[in-house]
């Protein structure tokens, strides 16, 4: 299951931080994994598809990084405690977790409804995050150290006509992360909520309408890593989305009801 590099023991002159990236096989997750490896993180990379994950691990390990691959479906909640225990042991500790795993399954039109899709999005985007971040938050609170990064979305800022299930899953995640932040900041743990707009990934190809301000995953990953270092609370990426979403959040309902996005 795990493609193990030979673990280099951390020493004061060769320190290693240890991180988990959930949803690491492609797009933003893979970009984050590459950048964090360059920053000196030992990484546990988690995704459903083992093939892509193994390729990414090999790439990182061939460049003096340390990455282990774990094939896992984030909606397999019961598997989390044991897998987390194993990962923390393999990494030699835990300092960081990034929850990137996400699915976007639009109902397929403004007159379509699809509970199966909605359920799946809640299971992956929200409950999967809670299944992983609950024990990790508990550990970080106990250790009085650590950093949690959740990749939510601008889509969670407002319920819109296009994809109610996705909006709900991301709104839930944003609120959940905010609650964790309010619990954990006093214990020295940083919780960063990332709200990306459009990104040039596979998910974008599925999008029906226009996709303004779309950025490359590498650019977003770079932005996120910088925000992590500054221990920020909430960021939009690209940053312009902060202002766009400010306008959208303040759009009155009687106007919003008439819009078609």
């Amino acid at each position, binding site marked *: 299951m795990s493609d193990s590099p030979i*673990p280099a*023991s*951390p*020493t*004061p*002159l*060769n*320190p290693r931080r*240890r991180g988990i990236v959930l949803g690491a096989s492609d797009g933003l997750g893979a970009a984050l994994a590459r950048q964090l490896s360059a920053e000196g993180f030992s990484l546990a990379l988690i995704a459903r598809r083992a093939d892509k994950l193994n390729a990414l691990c090999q790439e990182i390990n061939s460049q003096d990084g340390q990455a282990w691959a774990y094939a896992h479906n984030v909606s397999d909640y019961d598997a989390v405690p*044991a897998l987390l*225990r*194993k990962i*923390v*042991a*393999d*990494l*030699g*500790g*835990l*300092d960081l977790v990034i929850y990137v795993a996400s699915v976007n399954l639009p109902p397929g039109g403004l007159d379509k409804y699809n509970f199966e899709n909605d359920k799946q999005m809640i299971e992956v985007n929200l409950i999967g995050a809670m299944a992983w971040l609950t*024990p990790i938050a*508990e*550990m*970080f609170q*106990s*250790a*009085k*150290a*650590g950093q949690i990064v959740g990749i939510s979305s601008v889509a969670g800022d407002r319920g819109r006509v296009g994809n109610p299930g996705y909006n709900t899953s991301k709104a839930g995640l944003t609120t959940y992360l905010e609650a964790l932040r309010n619990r954990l900041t006093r214990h020295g743990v940083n919780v960063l909520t990332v709200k990306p707009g459009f990104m040039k990934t596979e998910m974008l190809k599925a999008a029906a309408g226009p996709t303004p301000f779309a950025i490359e995953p590498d650019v977003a990953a770079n932005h996120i890593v910088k925000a992590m270092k500054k221990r920020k609370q909430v960021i939009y990426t690209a940053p312009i989305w902060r202002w766009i979403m400010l306008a959208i959040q303040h759009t009155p309902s009687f106007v919003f009801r008439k819009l078609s996005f």
Partner: protein
Amino acid sequence: MSFNLNTTFSQLENFGHSLRAPSYRIAIKRTEDIYDAFQLAKKLGLTVAARGTGISYNDASLNGGGIVLDMQGMNQIEEWDPASGVIRCESGVTLEQLWQRVEPDGWWPPVVSGTMKTTLGGCLGANIHGKNNFQVGPIGEHVVEFTAMLPTGALVTCTPKKNADLFYAMISGLGMLGVFTSITLKMKRIYSGLISVDAWHVTNLRDHLNDLREHAPTHDYIVGWLDAFAGRKNLGRGQIHGARQLNEGEDPNPEKTMRLPFQHLPDRFFGVLSKSKLHYFMNPMMNNFGMRFVNMGRYALSLRHHTFRQSHAAFHFLLDYAPEWERSFGRGGLIQYQSFLPKETAEDAWRELLQLSQRRGLPSYLGVTKRHRPDKFLLTHSVDGFSLALDFKVTDSNRRRLSAMLQEFDRIALDAGGRFYFAKNSETTAESARRFLGDAAIAKFKKLKKRCDPNGALESDLYRRIFGKTQ
């Protein structure tokens, strides 16, 4: 043992605050707790390391991602016989508890570290030495008996005669064969709470080592301070402190001087500056420029030769004088590099080390020398010669250069027949360790490991660094 392991997750550090290892810390109060922890670890597939007060300079008591047994709760002195000087303690008892118990009765621990905060379990695991190593050997030579729990749950009792192979391997064995539960030690008679100290300066490395060697036989303790900034003909200059225990009758009032209040270390410098605040004042000086002057000033003060009496605690526990002094090294913390060299090769090798550190602009801020003799413990660090301990400040910008330099240090020291101490050096590689321990000692240790810990339950970051993963 049914509890939530997540809520034991702790950010454990080494003494110098230069390493952080998040791990599950389980508080141990009784021997049975150790057994329960081993069972839990087995169930969860985790490794276990024991930790006392966690003040090794390196990763000896760290086990990132695994279980760490916090032994500080096993801190009962079980039996003390002031007539024979034999004391039996749980392994979490500290040297502080120990000397405070035995001193008023006219005894002193035969071997102590520079801090009294160490636990006996840790002292045996590293087989610590003191400033009297050349006279009395490491602490292991004063252990009458110990009991340890193996990962199988079995309790073994060892003496130099009974289970002798385990006795000589578990002492110095880094806690990797079993967890000490009970330790019996023989104390040393003293006839005063005071110790007579001679202090004099030495102007270069040759004199420094000569004086350590020549004055050792006439002193019970000897230790040198070395100004690592001084170069050329002053290289190796410093100050030697030789100390002698008082004989019976030399102290007119031993009852008074052996009382605990007499041994109290003052809380303030010059009666003003609170010592726990010292690091705020030291921090701005902790750079090459500032420390050059601090070392120079210290050398100037050492030019006055004098003999004085001070309390045992004040002489021995220099590191406890200023609590948290290590904080003055700043965010990156500190590391110590200590090499043990045979008396024949020490001078040339250390000249090379010190010159290299000066050329690289990475001088040590504190150098300490001692005189040693060999011992027969399996993973021994000792030699018939000297040790030189060098403290280095770690910063984000010097890590890479310091690491490269210490690798060269290792090569120079090993070529000169040197050895390293597993409670100190944090950068010793498996290859370096193999060179000074020898394949035979490593094979013997691994064989004992297999016997005591067949499933490889005991692992620390130090163990993985030196011996690799067993699982």
